[in-house]
């Protein structure tokens, strides 16, 4: 049985046209354990769309949606009959069981179409260029390299968890830049950063409270820690939806979270940054200005997203811009962007505008031991979870 048929990868669903209240309700619904095969995304590539057409201007909503998602299979929700091409209509009020069975049926169709293509080409075929047309850009050679099954499995999992499936874009075109950046302030990440700063400066624990199915507080001390009773799937979901959908506030907190999970704030924030970035570049990182990594991330305690070690090794040696790295590394841009976003969030990335000459010795020197190192790394990457 194929990986797709086992639902190893959550299906990405985008909500469109929803009021804050309705979006929040659906977000809660999708955070449930029974919905772990589905993940809501705020923007970017999606496998399925759910479109609310009871808006002040349904036609405009529909056109806006199709402009962003021209080919995406969709469920249309409305109080009135709506006939739209390539959609499934559901009349409101929507029964959640019916919604679920409809999504499951549509998922089968989506998975079947993926299986008809090779796994690699399926990812590319779904990619939409910024102008909205479907492209078939070949996947970089490095992304096809797979020397071991275990490493391949891990790569797939990491891709889904941290990089999403955002397509490579032409970064030399400045008009494209806004499509690959994200503003953490628009997401839970921004709220978390704010709460961490407040805890650090005040020395008082801060709690993020609101419509959360659990508690999350930042505890001040010699090292800031996070205490929370939220499930990981919910945290992931929360990182993907816009902040307007999760009504929350930051308040001083004096009651510990009993029986919750504890984590170092820096490590928790790293994880949240990867979940939020999902293959995008944090807004504060200029695409064309060289950046330097002040030190290696502590990869034994924070998640190493795909190609993170390679990028780290380069950026501790010499500054490079995201533009340069993307051109030289031949890895999917989403992996580069996710990693840069996480290190920027951790405060270990700094702008280092210097001339390009003399910075790229790593890229021109042929290392005699490279093949040997490759073989060692292959062994070290096998059974990585042991």
């Amino acid at each position, binding site marked *: 049985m194929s990986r797709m048929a086992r639902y190893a990868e959550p299906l990405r669903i985008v909500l469109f046209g929803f009021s804050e209240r309705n979006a929040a309700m659906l977000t809660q619904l999708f955070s449930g354990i029974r919905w772990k095969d589905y993940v809501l995304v705020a923007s970017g590539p999606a496998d399925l769309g759910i479109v609310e057409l009871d808006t002040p201007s349904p036609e405009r909503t529909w056109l806006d949606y199709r402009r962003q998602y021209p080919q995406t299979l969709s469920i249309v929700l409305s109080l009135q009959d709506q006939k739209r091409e390539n959609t499934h209509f559901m009349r409101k009020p929507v029964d959640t069981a019916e919604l679920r069975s409809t999504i499951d049926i549509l998922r089968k169709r989506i998975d079947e179409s993926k299986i008809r293509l090779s796994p690699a080409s399926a990812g590319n075929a779904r990619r939409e260029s910024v102008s909205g047309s479907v492209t078939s850009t070949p996947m970089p050679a*490095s*992304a096809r*390299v*797979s*020397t*071991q099954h*275990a*490493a*391949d499995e*891990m*790569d797939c999992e*990491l891709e889904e968890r941290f990089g999403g499936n955002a397509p490579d874009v032409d970064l030399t075109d400045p008009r494209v830049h806004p499509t690959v950046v994200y503003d953490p302030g628009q997401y839970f990440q921004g709220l978390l950063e704010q709460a961490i700063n407040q805890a650090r400066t005040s020395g008082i624990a801060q709690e993020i409270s609101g419509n959360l199915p659990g508690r999350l507080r930042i505890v001040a001390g*010699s*090292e800031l820690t996070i205490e929370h009773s939220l499930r990981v799937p919910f945290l992931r979901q929360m990182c993907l939806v816009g902040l307007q959908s999760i009504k929350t506030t930051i308040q001083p907190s004096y009651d510990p979270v009993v029986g919750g999970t504890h984590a170092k704030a*820096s490590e928790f924030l790293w994880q949240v940054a990867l979940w939020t970035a999902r293959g995008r570049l944090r807004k504060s990182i200029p695409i064309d200005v060289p950046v330097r990594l002040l*030190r*290696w991330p*502590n*990869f*034994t*305690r924070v998640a*190493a997203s*795909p*190609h*993170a*070690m*390679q990028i*780290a*090794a*380069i950026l*501790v*040696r010499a500054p490079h811009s995201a533009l340069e790295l993307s051109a030289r590394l031949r890895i999917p841009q989403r992996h580069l962007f996710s990693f840069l976003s996480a290190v920027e969030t951790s405060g270990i990335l700094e702008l280092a505008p210097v001339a390009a000459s003399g910075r790229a010795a*790593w*890229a021109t020197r042929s*290392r*005699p*031991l*490279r093949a*040997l*190192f*490759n*073989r*060692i*790394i*292959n*062994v*070290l*990457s096998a059974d*990585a*979870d*042991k």
Partner: protein
Amino acid sequence: MKNEANYKIVFTGPVGAGKTTAIGVLSDIPPISTDEAATDMTAKRKKSTTVALDYGMMRLAGGERIHLYGTPGQERFDFMWEILTEGGIGLVLMLDGARPSPEQDMSFFLDAFKDFISSTGLAIGVTRLDLVEDRDRILKSLHERLGRMNLNPPVFDVDARSKRDVRMLVKAMLYAVDPEVNDAAA
């Protein structure tokens, strides 16, 4: 061109930092250790200590082998260190984060191996940080000292008993030598 049979990764660091354990979790053969009952200051830290060397081996595809050598932690055995580094492709420095001054330990070993690390790779694993109150302060202090030495190797908080941690450390050491190493799961 180096002889394949002599490729090795060297583990060094003070007594009790976890060199023997790290080699044990990486090795594909039961590690060979020349531990003896500790009789000097070392006895305060552990019952036995490595007096000659630790040895383990990683098998690569096609039967190739990477030898893993651990140096004795005590300075009076430092005459062996130069011999052990011959044919080495990198140094893994294990530090005990719970010792009074891991920074001084680090400086000592980096100075002792400076010729070796100038031509190969380096990664630093700091163990027992779970026993200290301010882990970040210790790591920050190590980074600051490394900066003054004009070095910026990977420095990871590791549990020497964890295969994942030790593998990550060695991988980082290899990437630090050659960032162009290609690994689909990197």
